[in-house]
């Protein structure tokens, strides 16, 4: 009999280590392509530094960035997968273990006592997004979300008559206010529609999409490309010090909106767009989707 609980916990620890030390190939490729296209000399140098830093981190298995994020899990559990309600405990333990073993920086602070809990857990943290799906597999994704980029996430409730152009304006406005602070070149997630919370949830989930994927809805895919082009015309550049590369990708998700509201959720992700995804079968086999193991 395989000890499935142990496999999940060990895998989750490994996922955190991989996520914070090694960029997924789509992110690394996007950085290298941006470097080739960049025309600003200072920006070229900065992009070189980012790429070198990511390579060193992978080689030494140390965190790319010292901000190893607030830990957020996305869990899709198959209805025939034998472990369900225990998953929270397992992922929480994995988070505590990874904090010691990787190590991660302890980033969870209780906002009432202002004390750092020291192990990256606390009220509602790690946060888990649940989905139940058919099948006998468990899909796990971890998003160690840095605070510097999270600070610039925004929710706009625009007037429906402003429409998509209004939504685009919100994105550009956010980038202009943020400048170099969220560590561009950025990945931008945009959630349009639903309610306030839904727009932001979709926006955050959107930044987990591989940078080289294509949205299945061609109109949304076109919108993503349009926003990306406009964002890169702003001239913010890597670290906000000028250049052509402000964004590596824009990912948009939509939900039906109430007739009277038009929520636009914007999630900002830094150049170190870290994530790790796996599929665990109920027989205990593990497949890594974002990293070679």
């Amino acid at each position: 009999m395989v000890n499935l609980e142990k496999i999940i916990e060990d895998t989750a620890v490994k996922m955190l280590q991989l996520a914070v030390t090694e960029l997924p190939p789509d992110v690394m490729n996007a950085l290298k392509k941006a470097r080739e296209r960049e025309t600003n000399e200072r920006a070229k140098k900065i992009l070189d530094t980012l790429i070198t830093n990511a390579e060193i981190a992978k080689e030494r298995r140390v965190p790319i960035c010292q901000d190893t994020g607030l830990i957020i899990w996305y869990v899709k559990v198959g209805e025939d997968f034998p472990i369900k309600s225990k998953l929270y405990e397992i992922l929480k333990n994995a988070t505590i273990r990874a904090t010691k073993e990787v190590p991660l920086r302890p980033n969870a602070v209780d906002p009432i006592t202002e004390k750092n809990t020291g192990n990256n857990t606390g009220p509602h943290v790690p946060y888990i997004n649940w989905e139940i799906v058919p099948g006998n597999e468990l899909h796990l994704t971890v998003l160690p979300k840095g605070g510097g980029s999270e600070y610039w996430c925004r929710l706009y409730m625009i007037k429906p008559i402003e429409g998509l152009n209004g939504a685009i304006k919100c994105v550009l406005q956010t980038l202009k206010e943020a400048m170099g602070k969220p560590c561009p070149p950025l990945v931008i997630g945009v959630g349009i529609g639903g309610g306030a919370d839904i727009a932001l949830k979709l926006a955050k989930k959107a930044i987990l999409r591989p940078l080289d994927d294509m949205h299945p809805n061609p109109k949304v895919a076109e919108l993503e490309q349009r926003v990306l082009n406009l964002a890169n015309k702003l001239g913010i550049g890597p670290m906000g010090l000028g250049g052509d590369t402000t964004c590596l990708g824009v990912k948009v998700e939509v939900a039906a909106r109430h007739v009277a509201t038009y929520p636009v959720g914007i999630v900002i992700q830094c150049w170190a767009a870290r994530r790790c995804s796996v599929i665990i079968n109920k027989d205990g086999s593990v497949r890594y989707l974002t990293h070679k193991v």
Partner: protein
Amino acid sequence: MAEYKLKTPISEEEIRKLRVGDIIYISGIIVSARDKAHMKALKEDLPEELKKYLKDGVVYHVGPVVKKINDKLIPISAGPTTSIRMEPVEHEFIKRFKVRVVVGKGGMGDKTLSALKEFGAVYAHWPGGCGALAVNAIKNVKKVFFLEELGVPDAFWVLEVENFGPLLITMDSHGGSIHKEVSEKVERNFQQILEQL
């Protein structure tokens, strides 16, 4: 655009030579301080030893990842945090502790820029997220102040560094700021894009 090697303690004269666009490498002592450390420094009287490290010294906006190796805490990733969070207090911090170099990322505002000018200091930029690369220059943890009270990211880490850089001077002691320059350009681009939307 020139390159300079600086060694702590750093004199006002050395700082006044620096202009935006210059590159510096720092050797000697640097002290980490984020939000909580800044607040503590301005509310309470800091230990004399810590004040000595700050005077004519370097404050680095960083909260490192540290690993316990042979009972010693060693930073393994230590890139800069977003400096603008310290904007409300940096002016007073520079004034009170006579700091010469502020290292961070993302740039700071007018209030800090005026302190750089008034007291003779610069703001030096290290690319955000580059924590793995930054530790190359850290040779030793000399001391940690208030680790228990403030936690790992927010404690004062006193670090011995060798050729910490290349750091880009993005705000100098003559009122120059690359952040301001780029901001103005971006504002113009933004208005142009909106007109065509």
